[in-house]
């Protein structure tokens, strides 16, 4: 087997095997487990980096075999795949480090890290899937492997959240399966292709294809947290902080958004979707979700819940970018896939740090936390400003590109939505920043713990700082050759130029 076929498989296996090894290790061997976890994460990062370099130079990494009559299992690394794979490889390493510190001394760690690795393996599979069928395979695997993480604490509330999570996501999966099976019946096994498959298609099929499109987007929209099927997301907040970080930044919501990107561009083709008028309603729905999520976030007092509604809003930026017909809109949506991940994971790391170090869960308990935990609070502030869209941070790059894309697509109302949403972002993030830095400590911290010299456990201390650095860098270096923005431009060029 050649190296080009081997690398995608290795990228998948690195975390799959890690999961198997971790499940096999006894509960008590913490050091060995941590070592396996970190080794696998570093190995995966290396593999993904090598593949990204290869894709940049035009190497075709792909492998496929026939799984069922007429259907093949297919892994293929294209530029879009590497965008998502790169995001998850980098953030997996950081989240693993964070989780090791976060779960110190808690029970069921073997189970936790096993499913954690399975979850990342599924994400990698989603990124590298070469056709809808393979995508669906890993998409459902993701649902199953995140359930034990959501209910990890085993409390009645966690189980309730898990129940809702599974009802929503399995329901979405059924709709998606119906769409995929129908499409397969109509058109056979469709590999993802940068310009889509339906540039010229029998007009008699248009009706059915439109229905299939609706089914696919509806099924994927559940995980992407689109209104009105977002209900599971705020509830799933009961999971441990590293899980929330992973769910919001990399795995679940991103899988949904990424799937919509794949369906619109690589299955239907942006031209077909535009001509059929499929994009416009989706744009309205995404815009509504952007505003709705921000509005709901305003009223949340629980920090993690506020972040959850913020995710609902931010992920729909990606969908909004997809629906803007024109390369600029596409670039804005794609680059936000990455930017949102980096910013949101920083925020969740910080929220976890406040909860673990000070016992603070609510916004109004954060008064004066900036003096006690300066590094964490700086990271939080930077990410919050990024979300609002302050230049030159990551969020600004996204919003600027999206705005330009909207103007190019002659959808001026989208600019209005972007502005309004930025105002709302400011309205729910700035009060927190104000409390952190400018208000005096009102009451003793609910449950304070101390770890030596640093403001918190070292495993928890560094990850948010690293992601903060990333979110500053991707903003500052956006115009250079290796920034996410340039990568998104590379993808967009391949999508629009047949």
């Amino acid at each position, binding site marked *: 087997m050649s190296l080009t076929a081997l690398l995608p498989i290795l990228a998948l296996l690195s975390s799959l095997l890690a999961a198997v090894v971790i499940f096999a290790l006894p509960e008590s061997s913490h050091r060995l487990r941590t070592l396996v976890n970190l080794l696998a994460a570093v190995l995966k990062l290396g593999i993904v980096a090598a593949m990204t370099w290869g894709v940049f130079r035009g190497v075709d990494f792909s492998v496929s075999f026939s*799984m*069922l009559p007429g*259907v093949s299992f297919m892994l293929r690394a294209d530029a879009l795949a590497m965008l998502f794979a790169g995001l998850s490889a980098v953030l997996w390493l950081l989240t693993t480090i964070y989780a090791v510190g976060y779960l110190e001394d808690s029970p069921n760690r073997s189970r936790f890290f096993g499913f954690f690795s399975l979850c990342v393996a599924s994400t990698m599979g989603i990124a590298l899937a070469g056709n809808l069928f393979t995508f669906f395979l890993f998409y459902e*695997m993701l649902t199953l492997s995140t359930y034990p993480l959501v*209910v990890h604490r085993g409390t009645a509330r966690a189980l309730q959240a898990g129940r809702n999570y599974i009802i929503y996501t399995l329901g979405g*999966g059924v709709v998606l399966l119906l769409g995929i099976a*129908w499409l397969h019946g109509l058109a056979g096994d469709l590999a993802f292709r940068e310009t889509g498959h339906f540039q010229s298609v029998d007009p008699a099929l248009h009706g059915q294809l439109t229905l299939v499109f609706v089914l696919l987007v509806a099924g994927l929209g559940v995980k992407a947290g689109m209104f009105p099927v977002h209900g599971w997301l705020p509830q799933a907040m009961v999971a441990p902080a590293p899980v929330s970080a992973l769910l919001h930044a990399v795995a679940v919501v991103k899988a949904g958004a990424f799937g919509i990107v794949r369906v619109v561009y690589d299955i239907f083709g942006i031209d077909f979707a535009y001509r059929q008028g499929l994009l416009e309603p989706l744009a309205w729905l995404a815009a509504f979700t952007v505003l709705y999520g921000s509005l709901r976030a305003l009223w949340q007092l629980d920090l993690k819940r506020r972040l959850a509604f913020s995710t609902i809003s931010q992920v729909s930026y990606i969908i909004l970018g997809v629906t803007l017909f024109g390369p600029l809109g596409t670039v804005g949506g794609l680059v936000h896939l990455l930017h949102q991940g980096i910013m949101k994971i920083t925020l969740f790391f910080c929220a976890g740090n406040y909860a673990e170090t000070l016992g603070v869960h609510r916004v109004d308990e954060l008064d004066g936390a900036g003096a006690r935990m300066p590094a964490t609070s700086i990271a939080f502030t930077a990410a919050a400003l990024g979300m609002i869209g302050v230049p030159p941070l990551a969020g600004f790059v996204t919003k600027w590109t999206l705005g330009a894309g909207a103007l190019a697509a002659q959808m001026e109302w989208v600019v209005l939505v972007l502005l309004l949403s930025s105002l709302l972002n400011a309205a729910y993030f700035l009060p927190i920043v104000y409390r952190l830095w400018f208000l005096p400590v009102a009451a003793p911290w609910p449950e304070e713990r101390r770890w030596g010299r640093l403001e918190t456990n070292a495993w928890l201390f560094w990850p948010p700082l690293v992601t903060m650095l990333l979110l500053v860098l991707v903003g500052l270096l956006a115009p250079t050759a290796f920034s996410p923005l340039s990568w998104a431009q590379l993808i967009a060029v391949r999508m629009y130029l047949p």
Partner: protein
Amino acid sequence: MAGLLFTPLAWAALSLLLDFRRGRWLSWLGMLIQVLVSLSLWFAVAGGGGFFYALAGWEAPLGIALRVDGLAVSFVLLTAAVATACGVHAGVYLDPGKSWQRYFWPLFWFLWAGLNGVWLGADLFNLYVGLELISLAAVGLVALGGEAAALRAALRYLFAALLGSLAYLLGVALLYGQFGTLSLTGIAGVVGATEPAAALALLLMLAGLALKTALFPLHGWLPPAHGIAKSPVSALLSGLVVKASFYIAARLWLELGDRLGSQLLAQGLGALGAAAVLWGSWRAFRQPYLKQVVAYSSVAQIGYLFLLFPLTYAVAEPVSRLAQQGITLQVISHALAKAAMFLAAGNLILSVRSKRVDALGGVSHFLPFSLFSFGLAGVSLMGMPPTGGFAAKWLLLQASLASGQWWWIAVLLLGGVLAAAYVFRIYRASFLEDSVSDDFYHPPKTLEAIPMILALLALGLGLVAEPVLSVLALPFEVAAGVTAVQP
């Protein structure tokens, strides 16, 4: 070849003379032989194609003819895998101190002989003999242990099985009277389109077999019998025994259905199957006892099998083939997954010392391995990728779409959701961490490993479905000339 039938029979007789412990050693040897023979036969057919085999050289009208095609050898191999797993499990699970346990091995081997007889049988009467052997052995296995409830369930099972056999035998007699032959292919060759007596015979046989397969609404006997039996026995019954009668029904339908069947019959059987899927899943969701959940799940999963009838009647050849492949995969993956599930459920029950679902709290902490096996098997039953259950569902979806029978799509999708509901109910109960008790028993490693292996096989089936299906499709006509070759 002949060993596949005679080894189990010989072992049944031999183990009757021994007590449980010695019978166990003997049986382990027997299982090894059976597995090796089944494997070599499977590879022989996979490589050289199927054939007819006349036992001891006697040709069809007098002797026993065996039909060795890809489907039959695959089921022989499946039986070897599942029965060996259950046999090894039972050897550790059953308490050798109790005197009645020694009857386990003879019954186990009779069952195996019957199963192989049904998979390979080429004429209707031999199939009947195999079926009866299976039923009697299965009833005996359910009654093993002798508690009042077990005896009641066994008796109920016996009546259902006898009634089913009777209907089947009546049908066989009618066909014999009409055509003067019992060979399935012989009848298929001469039967015409309008023969009411033959159609009646087919109807009778299908009804009898449906009763033995526990098709809704004739499923009443199954949950008590499968729920009360010892876990390895339940695994055998749910995994293999109900498939035997379905297998005969399917062979009858595929040979004779196009002429003797009708759209009404096909759709009716499909509708009953759909009702079984929905009703069985719902009942499974409501059961307070763990093994009852698994038993009702069998009722639901059997329902899918009956979609074979509408999806192969009066449809294009490729569609019919898709449906047959889907159903075959469903049979195999359900056999593996359900056996895994029953064995894992047995471990969980041993561990928490209670049969109730709500007693499972904290078990994810103490017995993660068995719970994981249970979960993996559940994934296959839900039809989630990449399991065999998913591959089956996918093929059936495609067949429904291609034949324009969209109503079955709803059943397939809804059935998956309902299966998720009852499987996740178990997870939910076992993830709960507020239980005060930490009094858990750890079953031996063998008991934990076996369900995991079966569940992994069910999972892997989805990944290698294509090569497996290509062997399943091998007809026995391919190498009709090599009748005498004995692998």
